[in-house]
C-alpha cells in the first residue's frame, strides 16, 4: 500500500514536471530553427532533426530598419514601468497597511476591515472595465502612450497586492515592538521607520516580488494604452505573433522575456523553505 502510494506520487510529480517544462523545451528548440525546419515537418532535436541557426536570436538585437525586431527598448520600458510602479505601490501600500494594522479608524460605518477590503477589492476590477475610461482619462491629461501613464495605471494593479500582504504581515509583528520604541522616546514615525520596518524585511521582499510579478506579466493595459512611442515587452512579443509569425524569433523573444522572473521562483522557494513566506502569505 505504502509502496503503491510512493510510486503514484513520484509518477505524478514527474508527469507534472514534464508538463511544466514541455513548452520551454519546445521554445528553446524552436528558437534555433529556420524557415525550413519549422515548416516542412515537426522537428525536435538540433543537429539530429535539423541544422540549428542563431538567426532567431540575432534578429532580436538588430534595428527594425535592418529587418530586426529590436526588443531592447521594450525590455527597458518594461523594467522601468514595473519597478517604478512596484516601488510606489510598496511605499504607499506599506504605510497604509501599517496604519490599518496598528490604528483604529472609524468613519460612519467604515472600520479598518472595510478599508482593507476596499484596497484588496480593486483586484476584482476586470482590466477591460478600467481600460476604456483610462484611455480617455490619459488622453485628456496627455499621458496616453507614455511610460508615466502606464505607471499610474499599474499602481492600481499593484497597490492592492502590497496592502494585502503587508497588512497580514504587520498583524504578525508584535505590537510590543512599537510600544517599547514609543516608551523609549521615539515618535510614531521613528518607531515605524527604525523599529518596525527593519523587522519587516521578509514581508517587504515577498510583497515586492508579487508586485514585480504582477506588473511584469500584465499585457492588457499596455496593449490598450500604448501604441508607437512606448512599447512594453508583452505587447512587442504578441505583435510578432500577429505578423508573418517567424516562430524562431518569436520563441527567442518569448524566452528572453520570461527569463528574468524565473530567478524570482528561486527566491520565493528560498523564503518558502526558510519559513518566512508562510507568515507573509496566509
Amino acid at each position, binding site marked *: 500500500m505504502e509502496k503503491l502510494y510512493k510510486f503514484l*506520487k513520484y509518477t*505524478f*510529480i514527474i508527469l*507534472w*514536471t514534464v*508538463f511544466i*517544462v*514541455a*513548452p520551454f523545451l519546445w*521554445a528553446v528548440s*524552436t528558437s534555433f530553427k529556420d524557415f525550413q525546419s519549422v*515548416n516542412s*515537418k*515537426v522537428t525536435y532535436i538540433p543537429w539530429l532533426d535539423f541544422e540549428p541557426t542563431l538567426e532567431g536570436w540575432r534578429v532580436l538585437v538588430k534595428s527594425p530598419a535592418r529587418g530586426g525586431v529590436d526588443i531592447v527598448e521594450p525590455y527597458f520600458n518594461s523594467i522601468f514601468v514595473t519597478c517604478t510602479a512596484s516601488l510606489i505601490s510598496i511605499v*504607499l501600500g506599506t*504605510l*497604509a497597511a501599517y*496604519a490599518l494594522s496598528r*490604528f*483604529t*479608524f472609524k468613519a460612519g460605518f467604515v472600520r479598518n476591515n472595510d*478599508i482593507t477590503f476596499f484596497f484588496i*477589492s*480593486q483586484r*476584482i476590477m*476586470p482590466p477591460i*472595465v*478600467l481600460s*476604456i*475610461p483610462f484611455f*480617455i*482619462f490619459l488622453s485628456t491629461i496627455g499621458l496616453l502612450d507614455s511610460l508615466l501613464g502606464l505607471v*499610474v495605471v499599474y*499602481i*492600481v494593479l499593484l*497597490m492592492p497586492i502590497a496592502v494585502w500582504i503587508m497588512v497580514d504581515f504587520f498583524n504578525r509583528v508584535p*505590537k510590543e515592538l512599537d510600544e517599547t520604541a514609543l516608551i523609549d522616546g521615539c515618535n510614531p514615525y521613528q518607531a*515605524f521607520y527604525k523599529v518596525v520596518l527593519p523587522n519587516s524585511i521578509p514581508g517587504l521582499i515577498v510583497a515586492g516580488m508579487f508586485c514585480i*510579478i504582477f506588473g511584469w*506579466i500584465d*499585457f*492588457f493595459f499596455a496593449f490598450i494604452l500604448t501604441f508607437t512611442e512606448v512599447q512594453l515587452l508583452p505587447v512587442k*512579443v*504578441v505583435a510578432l*505573433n500577429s505578423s508573418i509569425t517567424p516562430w524562431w524569433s*518569436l520563441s527567442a523573444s*518569448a524566452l528572453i*522575456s520570461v527569463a528574468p522572473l*524565473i530567478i524570482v521562483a*528561486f527566491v*520565493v*522557494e528560498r523564503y*518558502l*523553505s526558510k519559513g518566512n*513566506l*508562510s*507568515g*507573509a*502569505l*496566509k
Partner: protein
Amino acid sequence: MNFKHKYVFLFPGLFVLIGILIFPIIFTIRLSLSGWNSYTPEMNFIGITNYIRLFTDDPRFWESFFRLSFLSVSTVILQYIIGFALALMVWREIKFKRFFRVIFLIPMMTTPVIMTVIWRTFFHESLGPVNDLLGHIGIGPILWLSDPVIAKFTVIIVEVWQWTPFMFLLLLAGLLSLPKEPFLAAAIDGASSFRKFVYVTFPLMAPISIGAIIIRLIEASKIMDTVFVLTSGGPGTATETSSFYIYIKGLREFQMGYAATLSFTYLVIMIISLTIIAKVLTKLMIKE
C-alpha cells in the same frame, strides 16, 4: 494606540488609489447612459436604453458570461486539486524537494500572453509537437484550436499550467505554517495517512483553502490574455469571455456607450457573485 499621525500613514495610499480610480468609475457609469459610438462620438444622454438592450436583446453577452463562469470555475477547481496534491507531495521530505518546489513555481512567473504565444505553436494543428507526437501513436490530428469544444479545453489546459503554481504556493505556504501538535496526536493514535488528511490536514487547511480559492477565482474571472492570443475568442464565439466581448464592442466596434454598460453590469455581477461564493465556501468548508 491612537494618534493623529495615523492619517499620515493611511491617506497617501488611500487617496492615490481613490484619485486614480474615481474618474474611471464615474466616467463608466456616465458613459453607460450615453450612445457614444463611432457615428456620434459624444456624451449625449439616452437614459437606460443601453441597459434595456443588454437585458432584452443581447444573448451573446450572457453566453460569454456563462462561458466565463464555466472556464473560471473549472480551471480553479482543477488548480485547487492539483495544487493541493502537489503541495502535499513536496510538503514533507522527498528527494529533490527544493528542485521540485522551484519547478512547480515557475509557470506563474512567466508572462501569460507570452507563454500563450508559445502554447499556440505547441498546439498548432499541423506544425505543433502535440499533434505530431499523438500522430506517432495513431491518434489524431486533434483540432486543438479550431474545434469549438476542444478549444475550450485547450484554454483550460493553458490556464491550469499558468496558474496552478499560484494555488500551489498559497497552499504550501499554508501547510508549512500549520502547528505540529495535531499531527503528533494523530500519529500517537495510529491514524493512517488518509485519515490524517481527512481529519487533521484538511480541516486545518480550510481557511487557507478558502482564501486561495477566492483569490484565484478573482484572478480567473479576468481570463483574457490567454483567450486573446490563443483563439481570439474563436472559433466563432466558442471561447469568447465577457472581457473579450466587451473589448470587441468597445475598442473594435467603438460602441463606447454600450461597452460601458456591459462593463458596469459585468463589474456589479462579479462583485455580487464573488461575495456569494465566498460566503458559501466558508459555510461549506468550515464546520464549527
